[in-house]
């Protein structure tokens, strides 16, 4: 009996690992589609390296930092040693109440880890240096992400405090979003983006690829949220899938309507961002919301996206793919929503949520400011003007993404 339950749960968790894995392809395509052809290989390269770095640094130190276990855990920092040595009962039902094995646990968390850096990749695209970004990713995924993650999921002080973040609106998405925001602030906009008071549009080179990316992200989110139940419990998992889908749909719908009213256009990239915003929004609470809560959380996300994109442009913060709006704005919103809607709503909870958002925000913000500033001083942050104008692909990678095509 126990073994059977163990096997079922573990199958579900492995499926979720596989789904979260493919989100990295989703991010990659979303990003290249919304940027220019001349920087395509560069963006793909960063995204591929981020998974590799995510898995390997998480093996080396991340997992031990994020889940140090009772003995080593502190309120804000703990570390159980390098590598991922198999604990005694790591492959038996005792390891996690029959929900998954140690290896499943590790790999699910490792797939999450890489996400934080991938989010940044899109925002800083088309101008960041490859080596600089890789250095950032190693530190951010290897240290920053697991440390804030431990505060809640590893049993740290935010957990004690009652902060709730089901699958990581704050712990994953905002952590990525803060670094994205700091990154684009320190990098400055792409050449030609804000000329003489007016905003210049730099259209993405392939809306179809971006659409594939958004679909794959939704696809992967079934695993991102569904797996965060941490078992195959039919009631919990199926509710999570439904709230996730409804929030995504509501986000897309409200972004569609709002963009249409405000800009008189049917802007696909905004609808896709709206869907992703809805997904990020529900991520903190997919397991504790009802159908209409989920709808409202998603619908608000879709509107926030549109406002946030416009706000950033006004502030001359250049985010080609809308990463900050999707992951930070909606990440904060979704985390707050835990205290507003659903079964946990209440002032006390809202306060806990605000504390959690702030604590993580301050730490993620400061550390990413530190890393990016250092890189800037080392001249490892931004590519040269010539390189940016001619394209990063030819300069950093020696070849073009579409060798036989003429792109303007």
């Amino acid at each position: 009996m126990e073994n059977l339950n163990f096997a079922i749960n573990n199958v579900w968790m492995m499926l979720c690992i596989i789904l979260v894995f493919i989100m990295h392809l989703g991010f990659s395509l979303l990003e290249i589609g919304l940027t220019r052809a001349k920087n395509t290989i560069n963006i793909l390269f960063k995204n591929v390296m981020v998974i590799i770095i995510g898995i390997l640094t998480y093996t080396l130190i991340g997992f031990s930092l994020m889940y140090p276990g009772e003995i080593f855990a502190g309120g804000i920092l703990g570390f159980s040693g390098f590598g991922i040595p198999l604990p005694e009962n790591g492959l038996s039902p005792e390891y996690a109440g029959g929900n998954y094995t140690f290896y499943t646990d590790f790999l699910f968390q490792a797939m999450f880890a890489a996400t934080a850096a991938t989010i940044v990749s899109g925002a800083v695209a088309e101008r960041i240096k490859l080596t600089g970004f890789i250095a950032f990713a190693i530190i951010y995924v290897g240290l920053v992400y697991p440390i804030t993650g431990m505060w809640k999921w590893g049993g740290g002080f935010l957990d004690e405090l009652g902060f709730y973040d089901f699958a990581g609106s704050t712990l994953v998405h905002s952590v990525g979003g803060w670094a994205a925001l700091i990154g684009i602030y320190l990098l400055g906009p792409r050449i030609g983006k804000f000329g003489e008071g007016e905003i210049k549009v730099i259209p993405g080179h392939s809306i179809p690829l971006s659409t594939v990316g958004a679909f794959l992200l939704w696809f992967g989110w079934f695993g991102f949220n569904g797996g965060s139940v941490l078992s195959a419990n039919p009631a919990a998992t199926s509710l999570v899938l439904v709230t996730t889908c409804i929030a995504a749909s509501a986000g897309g719908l409200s972004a569609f309507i709002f963009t249409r009213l405000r800009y008189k256009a049917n802007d696909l990239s905004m609808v896709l961002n709206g869907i992703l915003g809805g997904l990020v929004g529900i991520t903190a609470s997919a397991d504790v919301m009802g159908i209409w809560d989920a709808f409202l959380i998603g619908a608000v996300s879709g509107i926030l996206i549109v406002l946030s994109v416009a706000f950033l442009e006004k502030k001359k913060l250049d985010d080609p793919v809308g990463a900050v709006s999707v992951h930070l704005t909606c990440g904060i919103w979704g985390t707050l929503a835990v205290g507003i809607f659903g079964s946990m709503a209440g002032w006390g909870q809202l306060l806990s949520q605000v504390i959690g958002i702030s604590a993580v925000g301050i730490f993620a913000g400061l550390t990413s400011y530190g890393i990016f500033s250092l890189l800037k001083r080392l001249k490892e942050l931004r590519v040269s003007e010539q390189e940016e104008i001619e394209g990063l692909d030819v300069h950093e990678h020696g070849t073009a993404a579409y060798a036989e095509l003429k792109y303007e």
Partner: protein
Amino acid sequence: MKKVEAIIRSEKFQEVKQALQEIGVVFFTYWEATGVGNETHGHVYRGVAYSTTDIPRRMLSIVVSEEKLDETVQVLLNTAHTGKVGDGKVFVSTIEEAYRIRTKETGTKSLN
């Protein structure tokens, strides 16, 4: 021999092609170009509306004999015409010699 270069609206191409073929101008070369001029197109992208003067056009290069010149130009002026800003231009210049690679014929014989 004359070279007639016509810059027209891409969407008028089929019509122009057919009209040219009707008067016996069944040889030419064309490619996609971008035109800068009076016409502007409005666009919206991620909430920012903007207008561009860089508009996709089709460029035709037609080498014809002097006799055919007027007729060719007239057909272009008539069929590429909509009356709205952005209909395009026709330019005429001189070609001194023409060769058909297949037969090495020269002069107007080589044209069609």
